[in-house]
């Protein structure tokens, strides 16, 4: 089953060709109607919200990291655990949403600020910035289209052990290091070569070498100091405090309809408290983000108000989303045709899908 499943979801397998033949690749997707004037307002960029949030994010890491190291070295390593956990959440969990928003280029108005945050967050999340820029581009073109979307986190059937291990980065981190070494010697995987244009590939190799140097320096610092603290600060949070990014990410599409060409039917918008929305940078408005990726994270609540009459009911909490997605994933282990069917509200514009072949 394992190999068959991977072949099904491979970007270079027969399902990819089938998706193209059926008109599912680079297709027309449903969009809620928003007047151009209002959409222009919602798309407007601003530096100030992201500067404020980035100052809290990086400043918080600086303060918490320094406090954690001080407590570790002068009081007790165990008492440093809470500070390291909070530091790690900012690094290994909030890093995901910063990577995402800055990667879209919508977080800031000023381009170099987006680029800088994207590079920092990519390093923190151990995601090669060029490769992931292209794979995420494909995810937006072909969201949950089997054989086309490289970011389907929960396949049918799900790779449960892999998902659970990744709450502690135990698959992602070794995979990232394997890819770093592969890239450092000037090679890409077949899936990566499929999405990254040739002229962009040298960037991948260069950055892998730089990252490996940083990790080598961290290892040297740990050996010389006889302490694991350098790894608790650099790289380690991707293991010990990455779980929240997965808690959020699984709400996005897990258990939902594949090959449907309507984000209302394959994506969730979930209400979250201010703390989670800070860590996740409002990506809980995920239907809205997929429908209108140019709208910055700080305007997504307004976009939600604008189009909610067209959307399926919002999930009132993370708990509510998990009450649906966990049973759906478990059911899909036995029944791969099952998926969560969303009811659109009365009066919502139905999406008249183009006739799909096959």
């Amino acid at each position, binding site marked *: 089953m394992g190999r068959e499943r991977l072949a099904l979801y491979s970007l270079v397998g027969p399902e990819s060709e089938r998706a193209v033949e059926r008109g599912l690749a*680079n297709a027309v997707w449903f969009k809620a109607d928003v007047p151009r004037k209002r959409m222009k307002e919602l798309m407007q*960029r601003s530096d100030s919200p992201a500067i404020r949030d980035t100052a809290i994010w990086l400043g918080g890491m600086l303060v918490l990291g320094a406090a954690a190291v001080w407590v570790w070295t002068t009081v007790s390593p165990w008492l440093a655990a809470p500070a390291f956990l909070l530091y790690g959440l900012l690094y290994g969990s909030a890093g995901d949403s910063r990577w995402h928003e800055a990667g879209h*280029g*919508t977080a800031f*108005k000023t381009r170099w600020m987006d680029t800088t945050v994207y590079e920092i967050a990519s390093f923190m999340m151990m995601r090669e910035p060029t490769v992931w*820029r292209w794979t995420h581009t494909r995810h*937006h073109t072909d969201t949950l289209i089997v054989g086309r979307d490289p970011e389907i986190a929960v396949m049918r059937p799900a790779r449960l052990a892999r998902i659970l291990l990744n709450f502690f980065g135990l698959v992602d981190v070794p995979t990232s290091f394997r890819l770093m070494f592969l890239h450092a010697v000037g090679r890409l995987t077949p899936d990566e070569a499929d999405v990254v244009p040739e002229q962009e590939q040298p960037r991948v190799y260069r950055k892998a070498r730089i990252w490996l140097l940083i990790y080598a320096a961290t290892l040297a610092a740990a050996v010389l100091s006889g302490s694991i603290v350098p790894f608790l600060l650099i790289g380690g949070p991707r293991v010990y405090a990455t779980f929240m990014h997965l808690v959020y990410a699984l709400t996005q599409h897990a258990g939902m309809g594949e090959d449907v060409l309507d984000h209302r039917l394959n994506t969730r918008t979930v209400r979250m408290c201010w703390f989670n929305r800070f860590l996740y940078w409002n990506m809980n408005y995920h239907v809205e983000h997929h429908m209108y*990726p*140019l709208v910055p994270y700080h305007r997504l609540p307004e976009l939600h108000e604008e189009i909610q009459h067209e959307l399926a009911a919002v999930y009132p909490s993370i708990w509510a989303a998990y009450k649906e997605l966990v049973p759906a994933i478990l059911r899909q282990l036995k029944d791969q045709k099952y998926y969560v069917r969303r009811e659109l509200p009365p009066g919502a514009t139905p999406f008249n899908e183009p006739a799909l072949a096959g």
Partner: protein
Amino acid sequence: MPTWVPACSVDDVDAEDVIPFEHDGVDYAVFRSPDDRYFATAGHCTHELTLLCDGLVMGPIVECPKHNGRFDYRDGSAQGAPVLVGLKTYPTRVEEGTVFIDITA
């Protein structure tokens, strides 16, 4: 020999914005810059053929609504991933309140 076709009235497009224009089944994008100059390009992003008229115009840059790919609409140049190929551009001229574009360019 240029083929000038009327695309829109000068007031049809706001400053720092874009509108679509279709002629003989071909899509074009007509831009009005913040300093009230008019430009025209191919209507679709070179990356995945999304219509640029739904995108965001910021100064001389238009951003594709699908993947945020950026072009300088004055010369069509691509401004970085995910767009690597520039846009075709067309000369424009304004006569008596109408914007014309030369579709032979």
